[in-house]
């Protein structure tokens, strides 16, 4: 059974291996090995206070376990799923054990074994016997995290069928996004933890986590406390057996039913104009579609958390900008608006002349959903922060970003459509979608670019010390937003009218129309691997230079609340700080521009000679 399943998994992986996947796998494995190396390195830290080191390792192991649990949110489905065997006469527990063994064959498990090697390093520093105890502990711990991951995948799968579940995965996604942006806080904390350990309460909770039981066993072996060693190892083993049994029980088909959203009984409101009809449809979809609900949750949660993280070092400087972040994330999450609706576009194509109403109705819907939310967050954040100088910045940026978002959402959704499964074909996994990573950062970059002239006006007011000019920036934000929303929307409607059948074909077949000679543009083609590597490098350099190394120190210098952390500019002598900030912003913008340029060249070639 086990051998068959492992061979089957390898076959599936071999057949689904594309260039893009290989890049992801290679970069994922590299990142994982770096994390594993760090974990082992932590185990070699000063051991004069073993309790403090154990706290640190327990925290790191808990992060590994958390990573495994959260992985299905990102990585999607495992190659072998219980559903594949639902109709085969195999006992469920045997199937569960077989699938668990197959899960242990893979890059993730390999990287984790290396990382958990920290346990053996830790044991070896305490003596030979603890090192020997570390070996079974490592095996049990690995099986435990893998099993937790599979159970979590099962749970997320079931959750995603309801709107509440979609909202929960939205919160998780936002938390993980913020954590990946704010990882530097952890590095500040490392030194403190090593010096003093965690507080007794946190320490006790950490050690009680099953991911720490291996450590507990190793440490007890050093003290020859064999009862604790046995209890910890047995605990792991029993936990493993119980979880396998539970998983086996859950493997049957359809245990957790999809929750069904009901429409209103008598929605007798008959809209009088096409644009109102589209608007009503959009609002209902925002309320009822799990995928949209998820997008709706990610934006504000990400924005609020990002605003709150700097409170760790006592700064409220980011809070007024939570609204802008929500608007930007809202636009990013909606960038594939047409793709999400799938082939429903045929209804618009059969009603020529309604393309404009379709675009405008969607824009109004998006603004209704994200407008009050973003403005509200800006006002609350601004009041909390209390510095009156922040208001023009915050208001100018949020209004401009909302307008830019409302305009760019339909435009990019039409222009760069990413085909995904039709909603009615994946009723049971409504959060599945095409790979929108590239589209997301194009949206982020364009929305920031489109909104930035309003900020330039505020900056000019700042430089000339003119309050009037600074507040003119807010008017500029509103005006710019309105122009963006109107002009980009008009262009989106025109594209929809001109290229409707081609878009429908793209959604139907998942690939762009093969271009005949006069055809000038296709919507999305796979990007060659090498180019994609360059693209990602540019993207990361751009994001790091622009945000944490450029804009964050900028905000700090403007607000006067300076925490140096890892912001290069703030570590330099005073006269060099402003030039460094500006250089970083320029570097970031250049990288991102190049990145977008490359992305567009890769996905849409050959380009038409000149369409404005």
């Amino acid at each position, binding site marked *: 059974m086990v051998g068959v399943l492992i061979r089957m998994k390898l076959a599936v992986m071999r057949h689904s291996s594309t260039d893009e996947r290989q890049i992801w796998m290679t970069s994922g494995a590299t990142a994982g090995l770096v994390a594993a190396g760090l974990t082992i390195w932590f185990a070699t830290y000063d051991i004069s206070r073993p309790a403090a080191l154990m706290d640190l390792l327990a925290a790191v192991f808990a992060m590994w376990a958390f990573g495994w649990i959260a992985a299905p949110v990102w990585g999607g489905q495992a190659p072998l799923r219980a559903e594949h065997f639902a109709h085969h006469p195999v006992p469920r527990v045997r199937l569960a054990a077989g699938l668990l063994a197959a899960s242990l064959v893979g890059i993730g498990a390999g990287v984790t074994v290396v990382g958990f090697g920290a346990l053996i390093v830790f044991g070896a520093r305490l003596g030979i016997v603890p090192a020997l105890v570390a070996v079974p502990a490592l095996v049990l711990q690995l099986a435990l995290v893998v099993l937790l991951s599979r159970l979590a995948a099962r749970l997320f799968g079931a959750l995603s069928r309801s709107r509440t579940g979609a909202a929960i995965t939205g919160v998780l996604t936002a938390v993980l996004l913020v954590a990946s942006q704010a990882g530097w806080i952890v590095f500040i904390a490392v030194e403190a933890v090593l010096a003093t350990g965690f507080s007794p309460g946190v320490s006790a909770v950490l050690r009680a986590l099953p991911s720490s039981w291996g450590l507990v066993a190793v440490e007890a072996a050093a003290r020859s406390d064999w009862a604790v060693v046995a209890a910890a190892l047995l605990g792991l083993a029993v936990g493993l057996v119980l979880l396998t049994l539970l998983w086996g029980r859950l493997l049957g088909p359809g245990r957790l039913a999809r929750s*069904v*959203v*009901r*429409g*209103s*009984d*008598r*929605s*007798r409101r*008959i*809209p*009088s*104009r*096409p644009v*109102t*009809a*589209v608007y*009503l*449809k959009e609002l*209902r*979809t925002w*309320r*009822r*579609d799990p995928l949209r609900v998820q997008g709706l949750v990610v934006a504000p949660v990400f924005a609020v958390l990002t605003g709150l993280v700097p409170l760790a070092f006592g700064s409220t400087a980011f809070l007024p900008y939570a609204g802008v972040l929500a608007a930007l994330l809202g636009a990013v999450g909606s960038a594939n608006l047409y793709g999400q*609706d*799938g*082939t*429903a576009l*045929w*209804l*618009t*194509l*059969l*009603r*020529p*002349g*309604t393309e404009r*109403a379709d675009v405008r109705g969607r824009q109004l819907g998006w603004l209704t959903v994200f407008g009050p939310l973003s403005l509200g967050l800006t006002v609350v954040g601004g009041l909390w922060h209390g510095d009156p100088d922040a208001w023009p910045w915050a208001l100018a940026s949020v209004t401009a970003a909302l307008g830019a978002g409302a305009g760019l959402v339909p435009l990019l959704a039409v222009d760069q459509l990413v085909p995904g499964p*039709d*909603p*009615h074909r994946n*009723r049971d996994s409504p959060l599945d979608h095409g790979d929108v990573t590239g589209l997301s950062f194009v949206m982020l970059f364009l929305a920031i670019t489109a909104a930035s002239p309003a900020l330039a006006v505020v900056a000019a007011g700042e430089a000339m010390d003119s309050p009037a000019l600074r507040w003119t920036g807010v008017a500029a934000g509103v005006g710019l937003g309105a122009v963006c929303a109107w002009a980009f929307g008009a262009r989106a409607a025109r594209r929809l009218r001109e290229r409707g*059948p*081609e878009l*429908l*074909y793209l959604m*139907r077949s998942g690939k762009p129309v*093969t271009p*005949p000679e006069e055809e000038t543009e296709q919507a999305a083609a796979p990007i060659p691997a090498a180019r994609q590597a360059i693209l990602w490098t540019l993207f990361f350099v751009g994001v790091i230079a622009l945000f944490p190394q450029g804009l964050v120190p900028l905000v700090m210098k403007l607000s006067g609340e300076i925490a140096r952390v890892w912001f290069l500019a703030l570590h330099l002598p005073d006269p060099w700080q402003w030039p460094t900030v500006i250089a970083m912003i320029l570097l970031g913008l250049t990288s991102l521009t190049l990145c977008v340029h490359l992305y567009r060249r890769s996905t849409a070639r050959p380009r038409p000679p000149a369409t404005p």
Partner: protein
Amino acid sequence: MSDAGAAPALRVDGLHKAFGEHVAANRVSLTVQPGSFYGLVGPNGAGKTTTLSMAVGLQRPDAGRSLVFGVDVWRDPLAAKRLMGVLPDGLALPERLTGRELLTYLGTLSGLDPATVERRASELLDVMELSGSAERTLVIDYSTGMRKKIGLASALLHGPRLLVLDEPFEAVDPVSAATLKNILRRFVAGGGAVLLSSHVMALVEQLCDTVAVMAGGVVAAEGPLDEVRGGRTLEEAFVELVGADVSGGEGLSWLGS
């Protein structure tokens, strides 16, 4: 209107579509007369869906044209599309609406006034048995039969004179199928024209007066039902026209032993 009255309900003239090397529809021509019930049959991959998509304006043809009561679908889309109702196979709808909300939305988009939208939506939902207990069900939770029925309701909503239906009976239960057939027969009896595609021969024999057989992207035969089947069953005529070998007679000796 007198012009339109004299023209065929649908004239497909040399529609052609190639995907790379593969020719999906090879200079296909069909003529559907007003008041006729026209069946387009062919095996999977024969090019039926591609032909119908090009005929109604959902897929851009490489060559050829499609005229609805004399109006060119690709030159004057607004006028042509007003004259026809379309039910494609397997395409998405605005899934998070109820049936009534969907019809209201589409009716308003088609430019009907609110009173007409409300009256027609109610009638269509009643006839399709989608009112009452199904009133609060979202389209995404509809069964296959219900999806076909709401699809046909939305195709009928604006009062077209030609219906183009791609596999309208695919995976539909017998009760829903009977409802659909009744409505289509009434539509034809009232002077409308129906073009439907199917690979269920019995159904086409039962409903249609005119048939065309497609295989490998070309029309192998077109004409009145009796002429095309020529004294055989449509299935026999079809297998002969398509030139398929019927397998399944050899091997599998272990089956059921």
